[in-house]
């Protein structure tokens, strides 16, 4: 198992946000996390990444058989976990280019090729996330992830605020990031939060999970789950409890 989350309970500002969450992701698998706003999806991603705001009360997170429950964020990143943020902070005076050049480019493509595939060249000399539109933020996040080249990719609503044309670009890049072009040798895994079906077309997700009030209450075929949610809402999807 690449990632194993067992009985995870997490507090934010002394309020319980996740309760007894269990989740297993194997090599090469893409999982989708559905759920209402405020159900705890982003918190789960932040807890996996190790953000200090998420206090782990109970449970365990294992990545590549290493207990990472209390590891610092950067060590988790070095082990191979990477995250695309929904609303990343602005870092004034630091250009995207300044950050990218601190990374070791582990991927197959040169940074220039990646930048071109995302149509992102003009933003390389801009301050990180300063005045970026929704779509520009997502591209900047994906660019960083591609260069970082993690094995487990956490994507928090990669399509929010992105126009239809750019969804195509972003979708293709995510597909590549998750090695969807490979069948047998695929080892990269993903955990993706989404509210729309748009990105599902590119993800070829293996499994869906539904979160409600800080718990994962059911799992299943992601497309079927999405259709149920779209037609009948989250509560109805939760009721089936397969």
């Amino acid at each position, binding site marked *: 198992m690449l990632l194993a989350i067992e009985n995870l309970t997490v507090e934010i500002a002394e309020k319980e946000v996740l309760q007894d969450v269990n989740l297993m992701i194997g090599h090469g698998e893409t999982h989708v996390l559905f759920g209402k706003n405020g159900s705890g999806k982003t918190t789960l991603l932040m807890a996996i*990444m190790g*953000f*200090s*705001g998420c206090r782990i009360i109970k449970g365990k997170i294992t990545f590549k058989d290493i207990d990472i429950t209390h590891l*610092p*964020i*950067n060590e*988790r*990143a*070095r082990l191979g976990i*990477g*995250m695309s*943020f929904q609303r*990343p*902070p602005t*870092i*004034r*005076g*630091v250009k995207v280019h*300044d*950050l990218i050049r*601190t*990374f070791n480019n582990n991927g197959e493509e040169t940074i220039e090729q990646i930048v071109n595939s995302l149509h992102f060249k003009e933003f390389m000399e801009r*301050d990180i996330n300063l005045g970026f539109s929704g779509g520009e933020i997502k591209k900047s996040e994906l660019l*960083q992830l591609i260069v*970082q080249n993690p094995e487990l990719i956490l994507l928090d609503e990669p399509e929010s605020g992105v126009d239809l044309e750019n969804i195509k670009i972003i979708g293709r890049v995510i597909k590549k990031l998750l090695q969807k072009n490979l069948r047998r040798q695929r080892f990269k895994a993903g955990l993706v939060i989404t509210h729309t079906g748009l990105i599902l077309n590119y993800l070829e997700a293996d499994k869906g999970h539904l979160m409600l009030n800080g718990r994962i209450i059911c799992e299943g075929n992601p497309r079927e789950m999405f259709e149920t949610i779209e037609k009948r809402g989250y509560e109805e999807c939760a009721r089936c409890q397969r």
Partner: protein
Amino acid sequence: MSTIDEKAETALKKKALYGPDIDLDSFKSDAVHHDYDPDLANFSTGEKKHIAEVGILASHDERTGSFMLKDHSPVHCSVGQDGIELLSMRDALKKYNGLPDYWWKAIEVDTDKYTAQAAVAFHDGFFIRVAPGTKAQYPVQTCLYISGEGIAQNIHNMVIAEEDSELHIITGCTTAPHLKKGLHVGVSEFYIKKGATVTSTMLHNWGEEIVVRPRTTVWVEEGATFMSNYVCMKMAKSVQMFPSVRLMGKNAVARINTVLVATKGSDLDIGGRVSLEAPGAKAEIISRTITTGGSIIARGLLIGQVADVKAHLECSGLILSKEGRIRAIPELDGLVTGVEMSHEAAVGKISQDEIEYLMSRGLSEQEATALIVRGFLNVKLEGLPKELQDEIERVIYETGKSVF
């Protein structure tokens, strides 16, 4: 005795408005004489390296002129472009019969004990005059260097930019590496005439027990621009300055940028004052300050005297250690309706969100902090030639590395 000296005598004990009071008698008024050298390249390797850290190049490439004052002796003065005059202040006073139209015109000699001392115990300084329409190809560099232990250096500089001229000055102020104690008093008068542009970039690199009291006044005429960049990132016991800019003509522009790092034991009280006195005048004061244990007061004052002027003031400070202190004191003074002035001030720590965001990309906490700090100090110095911008970025990068 001249009237200037008489007036100065009355103010010899007058405390300054800001900053700790300094006992001027605890510094030596005499210094050994240093010989003139026609070539900066002849300076010792150590000295050359040291002055390079404040932007002074020993090679004359990419510099229109060079001036160096060591203690009280002008040791070098050369210029390589027609229309640009660079002299020691003493020589200029001789040549122009005491410069009656300019000498002590922009600043009152009895402002405080420091201006008074600069008058009664005047050592030397630099004088730059740019002829009408002349544009300096490269910056003129001036270096004010203290090498004698415990001495006072009383300087008076003057810059006259005639109509439609353009000048960049890099002033590097520093002390010999071994030096402990010293006092630098520096009066500077800038006269920027119609349509002229002057950029003054000051890089300071002081020692542990050095006291610094610059007194700068700038007069800016119609359509003229004054830009000041002040960078001080090394230890100094006490620096207090509050340069004053008067935008006297229509559409005159001033920009004052300050980048400061106060290490433990440093006491920096630094600001800028711009008085907007004609329609269309514009001003911007930006300061970025960091303390790693020292004390900083970041002042800013905008005075809107007439309608149809626009100005903005921004003070941001980061406190990176338990002992440091930053006081941001932005002040707006509007005297009439029709002025448009604003300010923002923020003092705090680096946001945890930013650090953790960078850590999620694999940077250690320390690396993330250093990157954010460099970004914070990286003020966009608009209108600066690339060469100068690179110079400042290099200084920020180098000193940033040693502080963090």
